[in-house]
């Protein structure tokens, strides 16, 4: 209910075109401080002792934001009686006759046939008596002049009317500056793409106030969407940080299927994007696999030191971890295997490390193929390319679905431990937490502080057993704690 009222509020708020219009007719504005009523509320303005009334561009459909005058059925000076057709307006859907709610004389046509005006903008003036015709005409002229005074009234559109509207402050409190404060267009011309302009009109965003981020500083649809505070229609990939394939999600299958209680009032339902739908499907599928988890802390002092050294050569922590995992997998092929039919092991011929990447509103797993064979630098370069492709949605299917082992790292978010959901088709997934200083006691009872991170592997117990994982983790630990082999 509350939400359904919102659009109305918005509509009336954006009566700014009307406002601006009246502000350009200053004397008149003061006579009708009620500000421009919307067409459907016109009745209320009856209480105002107006003699000259505006005929507004009506909203003929819920999606209509502006209308084009097809033709004026009546011409200036014609006597109108309530209910008569005055003008034919073309909306986004159809042509419709618009009737007058009042008796009177059509004193002036503000928006001539063929031109366009936003919903709620005055398109003509209705005088009650002949005496007021002259007055009304004067207003109309003033309006037209101030309208055309605004810079470059491009195209026979309503821009002329709309432009000043934007700057008019939303209050009759405004003094009466005879010429509407036409926004002298900034010397830097505003360039907006066709769709950006459409969106701006739809969401009532003043395009002149936006800063374009597109090529040559042009305003793009996403600039307008950002300004309107709405989600981009086609999610732009922005973040490319590794994240767990299913980390946070508590495996609660019932949640999705359970008969949902009626949504709370005001809730919004946002359908999945394609990517989100794919994630959801994979996660459900994972429930058919019996998984278990094994983990332990790994000291990272040596790794951190190495990372400091190779960072400037473009090596990322992701590449280091992927390389370490790949090298460990070489020695434990079963952890790199897959159980395809529940009856056999499928030993994969190559070691392809998939790395979970969070992408604005989604999750994808670009794959570092043959991660055991490529050296650290090539791997880092490869990774950079993959992330770039993921961002621009250019990943080819084999670049995200050929993984044999997945790596998920939430360490950079301060997460110290988590477990991941095993993606269908793979044998194991490694969840890496943050490395943090930890007090440890050695065999001799000496205490020291070492950086430790918790590594947790989720595996398919049909093919990978506890001892397998433990052995794999031992190897992984050795590599991480003596990382020099990584750079070989």
């Amino acid at each position, binding site marked *: 209910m509350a939400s359904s009222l919102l659009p109305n509020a918005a509509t009336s708020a954006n009566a700014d075109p009307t406002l601006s219009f009246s502000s350009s007719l200053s004397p008149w504005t003061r006579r009708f401080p009620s500000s421009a009523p919307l067409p459907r509320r016109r009745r209320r303005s009856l209480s105002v002792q107006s003699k000259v009334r505006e005929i507004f561009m009506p909203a003929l459909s819920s999606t209509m934001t502006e209308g084009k005058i097809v033709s004026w059925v009546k011409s200036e000076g014609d006597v109108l009686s309530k209910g008569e057709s005055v003008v034919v307006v073309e909306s986004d859907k159809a042509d419709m006759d618009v009737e007058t709610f009042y008796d009177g004389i059509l004193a002036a046509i503000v928006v001539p046939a063929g031109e366009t005006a936003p919903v709620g903008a005055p398109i003509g003036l209705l005088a009650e008596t002949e005496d007021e015709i002259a007055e009304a005409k004067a207003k109309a002229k003033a309006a037209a002049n101030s309208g055309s005074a605004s810079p470059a009234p491009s195209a026979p559109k309503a821009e002329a009317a709309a432009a000043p509207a934007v700057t008019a402050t939303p209050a009759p409190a405004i003094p009466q500056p005879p010429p509407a404060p036409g926004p002298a267009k900034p010397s830097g011309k505003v360039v907006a*793409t066709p769709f950006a302009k459409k969106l701006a009109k739809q969401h009532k965003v003043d395009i002149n106030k936006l800063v374009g981020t597109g090529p040559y500083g042009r305003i793009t649809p996403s600039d307008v969407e950002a300004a309107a505070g709405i989600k981009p229609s086609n999610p732009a990939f922005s973040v490319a940080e590794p994240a767990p394939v299913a980390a946070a999600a508590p495996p609660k299958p019932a949640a999705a299927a359970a008969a949902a209680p009626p949504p709370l009032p005001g809730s919004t339902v946002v359908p999945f994007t394609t990517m989100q739908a794919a994630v959801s499907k994979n996660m459900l599928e994972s429930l058919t696999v019996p998984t278990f988890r094994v983990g332990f802390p790994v000291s990272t002092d040596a790794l951190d030191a190495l990372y400091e050294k190779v960072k400037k050569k473009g090596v990322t922590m992701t590449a280091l971890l992927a390389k370490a995992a790949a090298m460990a997998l070489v020695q434990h092929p079963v952890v790199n295997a897959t159980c395809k039919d529940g009856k056999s092991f499928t030993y994969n011929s190559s070691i392809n490390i998939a790395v979970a990447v969070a992408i604005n509103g989604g999750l994808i797993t670009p794959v570092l193929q043959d991660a055991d064979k490529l050296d650290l630098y090539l791997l880092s370069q490869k990774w950079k390319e993959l992330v770039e492709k993921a961002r621009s949605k250019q990943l080819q299917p084999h670049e995200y679905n050929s993984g044999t082992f997945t790596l998920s790292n939430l360490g950079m978010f301060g997460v110290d431990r988590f477990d991941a959901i095993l993606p269908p088709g793979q044998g194991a997934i490694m969840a890496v937490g943050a490395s943090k200083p930890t007090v440890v006691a050695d065999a001799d009872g000496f205490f020291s502080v070492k950086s430790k991170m918790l590594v947790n592997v989720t595996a398919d117990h049909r093919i990978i057993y506890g001892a397998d994982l433990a052995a794999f983790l031992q190897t992984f630990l050795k590599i991480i704690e003596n990382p020099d082999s990584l750079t070989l």
Partner: protein
Amino acid sequence: MQSSLSLSFSQGSSAVALAPRSRLSPDSLPLASPAAPASLRFCGLRREALGFSSLRKSGCGASGSVLVASQNRAPGRVSASASDNGSAPKSFDYDLVIIGAGVGGHGAALNAVEMGLKTAIIEGDVVGGTCVNRGCVPSKALLAVSGRMRELQSDHHLKALGLQVAAAGYDRQAVADHANNLASKIRNNLTNSMKALGVDILTGVGTVLGPQKVKYGKDNVITAKDIIIATGSVPFVPRGIEVDGKTVITSDHALKLESVPDWIAIVGSGYIGLEFSDVYTALGSEVTFIEALDQLMPGFDPEIGKLAQRVLINPRKIDYHTGVFASKITPAKDGKPVTIELIDAKTKEPKDTLEVDAALIATGRAPFTQGLGLENVNVVTQRGFVPVDERMRVIDANGNLVPHLYCIGDANGKMMLAHAASAQGISVVEQVTGKDHVLNHLSIPAACFTHPEISMVGLTEPQAREKAEKEGFEVSVAKTSFKANTKALAENEGEGLAKLIYRPDNGEILGVHIFGLHAADLIHEVSNAIALGTRIHEIKYAVHAHPTLSEVVDELFKSAKVHSQAPSPVSEPVAV
């Protein structure tokens, strides 16, 4: 020629606006020959119409709007030509030589062989001409892709059908290859069909040396009893526009789809512009139309144009500037975008400057008639077009017919459509083999292959009303909506309108315009009816399969109200 062209077009946009009509070619792109500016075609059409009606009066009386093939003349002609053959059978290398192997030349050649003529066709470029290589054919390949993309991207539509499809994507190069492969396949088909029939394909630029004499290549001279010029047209680029083939392009370049710009301006909202806007927006571009006339799609019936704009322009990522010329277009270079200077079409005052990623010039087509040697037979082109009479016979500078010389297709500018060129070519072959034949251009359909499609045949409503006023008859209009058609609703494609313009007094069909699913295929029932002179009260009893889209046309005929005094449509089989 160029200068005269530019003169007439300097106001470019008007030419542009009209162009769409002329370029109605079924394929949306100029077919066979590149073409003439639309406005020209417009005039051509109208002239045609008038010519026709007078013809009709003198010749066929009431029978109507059909092609007139006056049979009575035929025998005489035949004998004449036979005697020609007898007297000088060996004096010519060929019976018929056609200059230009586009769709028009191809159609003429096939018919000529069928009529027993020894035929050669001269081509200076590639067989197939504009239609096959740079027009209708490759553009259809791109539109096939854009149509599917549009379907797959329309979540709302798919959901209504109960379908779920993951995000659709495309590979630009593969799309471009599809278009290119289609063109070469059709080109090969065309070449093979002519070779198989024994048409000699002579390679080189053809020039008319004199009566019945043609040169091709460097210095091969041949003689022919009759010569047909079918050299077609090229994209017309108004003055001030610099085409670099990369960021400022014509349809020739666009069909190669070497890039899909984020934002492209299309100069001209005729058929070519409209079809490309369909392609580009489906592939993710945003489009800005620049139209010299006051409204978009000026060549279409206004009602259809309005509806088409609501469906094809307004909901898409398209905006437009009307009533303006693009006075100067500079390609992108030195890190600057393409800039387009707009001036008011009437006052010529500067109006705006656009900065876009690319610009497509779709302002019409200019005839390709330079270097044809027309001066050798004393023929002066008009804005590049070869003047012809209604039988496609070339008219010389003194207004006399040039014997044995014909011109068909875009080069004569009568109706710049591939199938019109072909029909004209067939008509010429009929004449040179002794059968008088006049093509009824009002029966030639045209189509624009947007999604949904637009098609038309005959007059628009304003044209029909103008003619009616002049000739004093009544005009009625019948309309049906695709929303009432079962098949369209099954496809969930109810958006569309069919409109019939007719004479209520005698049931003559003056024009039909269709906007909706498969409109381009639906128009032929009507164009055939017009070509055969069928009246509404005759055709309305024909049965259409249910449920099919053709019922839209059926409805149209059935809803027309022909005055009852019209003669009974079917003569009852009553024994007398």
